[in-house]
């Protein structure tokens, strides 16, 4: 999908956007973006992911030119655009509320930016036609925005921002206004359109699934700075901190102390169990760490697992059925509650556990990530 298969000897990617140590302080007190640096490569879909108020929109609006950074520089294709007004940047944005001009038809909305550039009439008509086809909106050209459904408006907004062939496309919560079912189909539609045009793209979202499906790289933001930047699978499988592990998907975190620190494995003693991690980590014996374990990597059974590592025992206190999978909440003897997710691959509930049963949870030695405190 969005992540291209990795090839050996890939040419060095061409950097399109470079954000250098950008800080934005509102009203002298609110630090919305705090010393952020990032590069976006040509052809990439880059996602800014984070909770409400973490400064995603502010960062995006500085790229678009609606806000000027308090400190720092923004370069596009080698040119310093930090102080360029929005109408002089080869960047277009798609707004969360779409911001379609209500007094203009779909056709005129798409042509709006082209007319400002003084493009000849014939060329405008041709380009608009192309955009309408791209968004499958041909028969709605003469409608006004209020005569369109939410999904159609969203597509108009997208192709309006693509019409000028910007070097960089900015998307602020592009699917925020759609309902859940529509979002899923639209995500892929959106990626297809973006890839067909081949535009570089920065996307803001607070929905981690959306970031994972659409982006080739993700930056996880919190309180104005980046916690981690990486490809979706890296961020998911190898979060670099508790916050990232917590924010991306569900996670169980065990607090413990490194007991054995070898080059090929470590063991971490926690009150609930002992973790045997099948690879080395950067740490030392006696260091306090957190062990992050995703619910889908935990297996449940009613028989005691072999060995002394990587299992624990508890009581099933909650079963949440999701259709494709079921999440069990297991209360361990220490009082800690962990979540385990089992696939429902047969029609009877997978491991025959019910409320109040005692069960064993176990996992393999490469399932977890050791996080420094």
């Amino acid at each position, binding site marked *: 999908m969005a992540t291209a298969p990795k090839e050996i000897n890939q040419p060095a990617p061409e950097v399109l956007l470079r954000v250098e140590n950008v800080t934005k302080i509102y009203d002298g007190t609110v630090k919305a973006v705090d010393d952020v640096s990032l590069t976006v490569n040509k052809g990439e879909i880059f996602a800014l992911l984070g909770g409400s108020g973490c400064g995603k929109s502010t960062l995006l609006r500085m790229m678009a030119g609606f806000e000027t950074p308090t400190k720092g520089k923004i370069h596009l294709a080698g040119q310093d655009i930090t102080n360029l007004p929005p*109408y002089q940047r080869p960047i277009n*944005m798609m*707004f969360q509320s779409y*911001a*379609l001009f209500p007094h203009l038809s779909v056709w005129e909305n798409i042509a709006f930016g082209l007319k400002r550039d003084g493009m000849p009439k014939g060329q405008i008509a041709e380009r608009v036609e192309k955009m309408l086809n791209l968004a499958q909106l041909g028969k709605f050209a003469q409608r*006004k925005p*209020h*005569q369109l459904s939410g999904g159609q408006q969203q597509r108009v907004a997208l192709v309006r921002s693509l019409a*000028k062939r910007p070097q960089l496309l900015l998307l602020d919560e592009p699917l925020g206004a759609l309902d859940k079912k529509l979002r899923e189909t639209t995500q892929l539609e959106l990626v297809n359109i973006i890839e067909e045009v081949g535009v570089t793209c920065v996307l803001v979202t607070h929905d981690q699934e959306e970031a994972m499906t659409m982006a080739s790289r993700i930056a996880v933001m919190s309180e104005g700075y980046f916690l981690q930047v990486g490809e979706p699978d890296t961020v998911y499988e190898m979060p670099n901190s508790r916050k990232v592990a917590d924010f991306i998907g569900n996670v169980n975190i065990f607090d413990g102390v490194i007991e054995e620190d070898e080059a090929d494995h470590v063991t971490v003693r926690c009150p609930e169990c002992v973790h045997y991690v099948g690879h080395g980590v950067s740490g030392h014996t006696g260091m306090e760490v957190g062990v992050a374990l995703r619910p889908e990597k935990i297996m449940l059974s009613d028989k005691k697992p072999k060995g002394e590592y990587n299992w624990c025992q508890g009581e099933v206190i909650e079963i949440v059925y999701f259709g494709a999978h079921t999440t069990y909440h297991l209360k361990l003897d220490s009082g800690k509650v962990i979540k385990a997710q089992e696939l429902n691959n047969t029609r009877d509930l997978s491991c025959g556990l019910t409320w109040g049963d005692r069960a064993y949870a176990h996992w393999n030695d490469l399932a977890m990530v050791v996080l420094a405190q």
Partner: protein
Amino acid sequence: MSQATNNKIFSNLWMVVVYLFLYLPILTLVVYSFNDSKLISTWTHASLRWYEALIKDDDLISAVLLSLKIAGISALMSVFFGTFTAFALNRYKRFKGRTLLSSMASMPLVMPDVIVGLSLLLMIISVQHWLGFPDKGLFTILLGHALLGTAYATVVVTSRLREMDGRLDEAAMDLGCKPWQVFHLVTFPLLLPALVSAFLLTFTLSFDDVVLSSFLSGPGYSTMPMVIFSRARLGLNPTINAVATVTIVVVTCAVIASSFYTSHQARKRKREEAQAYSDSNK
């Protein structure tokens, strides 16, 4: 008889009473404008006598024309200044004296006209004393009406600006509009309906104002309401009925036309939205 029917009869009766209260005086006026008698309260027989008198009544005609002229110009001024004030208050969130401006802008709405008129009069007299102008007359009336009208226009335009998506300006700029193009291509067309209603509102306000005009007018500048008012004190002349009837007819037609237009637009929009919905579900 059941309780429900009782209620219904009562509420219908009540409605008739209210309507009579509101419209009987106007109806009387209209009917008596076709009365042949010189006495305002005695009906003799129908005639167009007072309409003929009206056409020949140069004073009244010129007062009407003056009122129209004042209302037109002052409404334009009100909309112009009101729009600027509304923009300042809505688009520029932080500037020195913002709170002061926002409360002062609506002050004339609550201040009694008599006080506004009196204070304007005092100001004009002292300015005239020091500078030798302005003389009381057309200019001073316009000034007063524009002052009051600006307050109303500000309210109307502000409410429209509030509900307008501020992102539209940004979208326009993003697509390559320079700031003045944003106004010309996006803000103004969207604001136009509000500007029209602000114009109509301030026009009407000015057209029937008698208090401010009385304070601010000078010799030779009597507006229609002032003429009617002063003649009424000398004993009513049925010509007044005629001019009032003409005004009522014009106003009623305008109101009916505009409400037809708005409800037609609303219906059209609803239909189109419904159609969009059914199309998208196909």
